[in-house]
């Protein structure tokens, strides 16, 4: 379970996410959507413990599995695909943790369509293959909570469908899935619940309700740019007041 209590994520004094409260229930599958600059990635990074400049409270139970945005990775680092996947089996378990068995790594690679890629340098993979590699790492990590930041960026439709099947499988196993996404059609088709963010929480509900025309219009109307001379937040009741 992940609970957000009046979370405001800041860049200096500027809020990227403003007074958001709510819960990602255990076993839920939620998409975080919103226009550019809505604070989606910042909120996910805050939940993952990567963005430390925030007010409010983030309560997390259970190990976190993370699929970060590709640009944050050093693809020039000379590491093989098998080694990347094996990272999932040792991350967070200390320096003496036993490495996952090669068979388990190969199985994970196979399940994302990368059988035979074990010795291939990760940096030589295409963008779509690389994304599948990160899914294989997530699979080996076997965490109860999985955070995914734009998992289908640079991935073709067929691969997206394959990876969505994997997400549904993990959801079916009782894991909590939280994914930052752009494709509203995909979200409407595949995700049971949605958090629509536009710096403030516009809606956090079943997907059909969250993505109603009214909510989408409100999200669109939020100015993307920060105001030049903003007023101080008085911590007044917000859109998301619970």
């Amino acid at each position, binding site marked *: 379970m992940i609970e957000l209590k009046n979370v405001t994520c800041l860049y200096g004094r500027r809020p990227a996410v403003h007074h958001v409260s709510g819960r990602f229930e255990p076993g839920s599958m939620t998409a975080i959507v919103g226009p550019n600059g809505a604070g989606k990635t910042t909120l996910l*990074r805050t939940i993952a413990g990567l963005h430390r400049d925030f007010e409010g409270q983030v309560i997390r139970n259970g190990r976190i599995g993370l699929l*970060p945005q590709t640009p944050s990775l050093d693809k020039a680092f000379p590491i093989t695909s098998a080694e990347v996947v094996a990272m999932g089996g040792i*991350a967070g378990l200390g320096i003496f943790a036993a490495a996952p068995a090669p068979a388990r790594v190969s199985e994970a690679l196979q399940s994302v369509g990368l059988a035979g890629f074990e010795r291939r340098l990760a940096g030589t993979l295409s963008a779509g293959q690389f994304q599948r590699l990160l899914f294989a790492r997530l699979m080996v990590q076997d965490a109860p909570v999985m955070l995914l930041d734009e998992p289908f960026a640079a991935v073709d439709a067929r691969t997206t469908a394959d990876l969505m099947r994997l997400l549904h499988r993990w959801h079916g196993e009782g894991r909590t899935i939280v994914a930052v996404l752009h494709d509203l059609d995909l979200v409407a088709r595949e995700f049971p619940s949605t958090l629509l963010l536009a710096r403030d929480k516009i809606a956090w509900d079943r997907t059909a309700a969250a993505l109603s025309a009214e909510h989408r219009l409100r999200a669109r109307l939020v100015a993307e740019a920060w105001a030049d001379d903003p007023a101080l937040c008085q911590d007044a009741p917000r859109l998301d007041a619970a």
Partner: protein
Amino acid sequence: MIQFLFEPFALGFMRRALAGCIALSIAGPPLGVFLVLRRMSLMSDVLQHGILPGIALGAVVGGISVPAMGAGGFLAGLTVALLAGALSRATGGREDSQLAGVYLVALALGVAILSAQRGVDLTHLLFGSVLAVDDISLLLMAGAATVVLPSLALLWRPLVLESFDPDFHRATGGRGALVHLGFLALVVLAVVSGFTALGTLMSVGLIMLPAVAARHWGETLGGQVIAAVVIALAASVIGLLVSYHADVPAGPAIVLSAGALWIGGVLAGRRESLLRRLVRQAHYAG
């Protein structure tokens, strides 16, 4: 030929120099590979200058004593590395500009302290003297290698994770700052251990040049580390032989040998070399 290769090492001081260089060649290059891959090459420059005021203060406090100067250099190197990082965080500036500022001040401070001391040969500290390696220096080099290798083995996984995917590392409970600091401490130890033999300015040569050269031979991380160690060992032996037969200072001869092997890699290495660009090979069918 056999005489050419083995005659120099019949002499005790040459064997001692060789043993010291072997220790440096095993400990330093793996760290150099990580420095290169983590885009921290500037850090090696900073540390080689940054340890000088510590060595100078060690000489002031303990006289010309390898343990005193070594401890001073180690503390100064760590201070410089931490200070540059803290300054860049505190001011929001880029770390490389803070590093440049810190190491220039450190170098000037070291030279000023040493110049005020009588009986300390600045040239010797800056450029070392491989052939004057004594028991204590040899112990420092071997001891540093003994500490660096198992420590790097323990740090290997978090260091790879932190280098490749820092967000994933931190999100899964990894302590990136601690890993970075531990790694820097090992680099400082390796640089300090080489200062009696190669001097503060050139001890980095046997850490960085083999690592840079290894990129042209090794494809994977493990391959690059092995290649770097082999290149450093070869540079040490070649440098000592050249030094003995051509009567040139051993330290520069070793670093020049490493430089020659690096240029060899640039020209004709297995990867990303000029030869590979000029001579096209038949491509595979699939």
